[in-house]
């Protein structure tokens, strides 16, 4: 059971109150029309998949509705760091 302390509402939120949003630092090319097919499909389909620390997005969907970033170990599921969306993860 994933439990995250939401950095916006300060509550411990349980897996069933949360929505997972995949990898955290996805860059949508700023000029889509300029982006090559390769760059665009990279953005659409290719994600990091580390066995270990993963930077990811979660939403406090059952609570305050805010998206934030989490560093989580994909093997132990230990939560290493939680930050608001405007910050970068360091873990």
């Amino acid at each position, binding site marked *: 059971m994933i439990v995250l302390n939401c950095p*916006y*509402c*300060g*509550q411990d*939120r*349980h897996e*069933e*109150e949360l929505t997972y949003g995949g990898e955290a630092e996805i860059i949508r090319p700023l000029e889509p029309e300029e982006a090559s097919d390769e760059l665009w499909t990279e953005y659409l389909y290719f994600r990091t998949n580390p066995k270990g620390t993963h930077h990811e997005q979660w939403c406090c969907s*059952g*609570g*305050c*509705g*805010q998206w934030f970033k989490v560093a989580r170990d994909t093997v132990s599921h230990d939560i290493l760091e939680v930050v608001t969306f405007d910050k970068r993860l360091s873990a």
Partner: protein
Amino acid sequence: MMLTAVSPMGIAIGKSAALPAITVVEAQERSDIGAVLIVTTRDGGGFAETLSKALGCTLPLTHGDVLQTVDKRAIWLTPRSWIILCAPDDEADLVAAINKAFPDREANASRFSDALAWLTLDGEAAENLLRQGSFLSFEPLGFPIGHGKRTPLAGIPAIILRESEARWTIGVERSRAQYFCTWLAGLTNSFEAAQ
């Protein structure tokens, strides 16, 4: 012609009425509660002062806080939104006041009285009933009197307010209000049997 209003559980607006199927606590539908949803275009309390002035009540800035005046309660929902509980008849005036204060709609007020159905549960058993449908800690330390929290309850979106040690007011999404009452009634049967 004039259209008449009824509550989600079928009572007249402006009243509260007992829900007899829920037995181990005193349960009432509260159609005397109206609501306005306020959403701002940017984070933080930047608009709080203007909003507060327009509303005539101060807005809380952290989760759990509920600020109360004689006729209103302001509940923090997200860093950019609040629910104001008021008398059903005051809904329109509040919406108008906010939208007047923000002509460019940097903050927006929406009618919200009908989005949620409101119930009050009163009695010692209420805490145990709530614990069956939610992850929140309902001990007085985890959920102080006067606080309000948003969480799924029995699988549906809800706002829970603690009025006193054993009295809770709960707003659940309207289209599933009947289900919620049935769920509570089912639990109370079980609860009695298990004691």
